[in-house]
C-alpha cells in the first residue's frame, strides 16, 4: 500500500501553442498528438476559441480544424502534467509534426 501520497491536490498545467506546419492539424498530426497524449495518465484538454476537446481522442482532435497559425491551449490535469505538456509542445511547435512550414513570403 502506498503511504503518504497526497492525491487530493490535482496538478493542473496549461500551455499555449501555435500550429506551425503548413497543412495544419490534419489527421496524421492529430494522431501523433493523440499518441503522445495517451502515453500520460493525466487528462489532456485542447481548446481553440470555440471548443474544448479531449486531447486523447482522434475524433475530437479532428474537430478543432486547427489551420497553420491557429493558437491552441493545452491543459493537463493529473500525474506528470508538466511532462505531458512539454512533450506535446515540442511536437507542435518544434517538430511541427515533422511536416513542412510555410516558406517565408519575401525577404526585404
Amino acid at each position, binding site marked *: 500500500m502506498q503511504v503518504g501520497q497526497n492525491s487530493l491536490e490535482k496538478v493542473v498545467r496549461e500551455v499555449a501553442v501555435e500550429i506551425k506546419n*503548413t*497543412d*495544419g492539424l*490534419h489527421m496524421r498530426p492529430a494522431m501523433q498528438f493523440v499518441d503522445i497524449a495517451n502515453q500520460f495518465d493525466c487528462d489532456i484538454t485542447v481548446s481553440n476559441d470555440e471548443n474544448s476537446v479531449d486531447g486523447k481522442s482522434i*475524433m475530437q482532435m*479532428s474537430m478543432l*480544424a486547427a489551420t497553420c497559425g491557429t493558437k491552441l491551449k493545452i491543459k493537463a490535469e493529473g500525474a506528470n502534467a508538466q511532462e505531458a505538456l512539454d512533450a506535446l509542445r515540442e511536437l507542435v511547435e518544434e517538430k511541427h509534426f515533422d511536416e513542412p512550414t510555410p516558406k517565408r513570403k519575401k525577404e526585404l
Partner: protein
Amino acid sequence: MKFADFVCFEALVPELKAGDRDSAIAELVSLLDKAGKLGKGSCREVTRAVIKREEEASTGIGRGVAVPHIKHDAVKDVVAAVGLISSGIDFSSLDKQPVYSIILLISPADDPDKHLQVMESIFKHLQNEMFRRFLRQCQTSEQIEDLLMEADENPYL
C-alpha cells in the same frame, strides 16, 4: 461547412459490393469519377493514392467508421463519397474492430485549410453516437442523403 457543400450525392452507397478495404475504396472513387468529380483519367491514380495513404496509417478511427482521404490535383474542390457495408470490413482500425461506414474524401492539393474545415464537419457528426447509428442503418442512397441533410440542419445529430 455542411455535408451538402462537399458530399457528392451520386456517390452514396447503402451496400458496397466490396469485400475488402481496397475494393471499397476503388468502388467509391469510381463513383466520384462517374459523377464527373475527378479529372479525366485520374480514377486509378486517385484510388492508388488513397490506398497508399491508408497503408501509411489507417484512417479507421474506431467505432465502425473510416475516413480514407487524400489531397490530390484530380479535384478542384473537396468532394466526398459515402459507402456502407453491413457485414463490416477490416480497415486495420485503431480499435481493431470492423468498419461499417466509410466516408471517402478527396481534397485539392493546394487548400489545406479547406480540407481541415471539411474534416471538422465530418468528425463533428461522426463522434456523435446517434449519427453513427443512423448512418449505419441507412438502406438506400436517399436515406443517406436525407440523414446528411438533416445533420446539416441539426448540429446535435
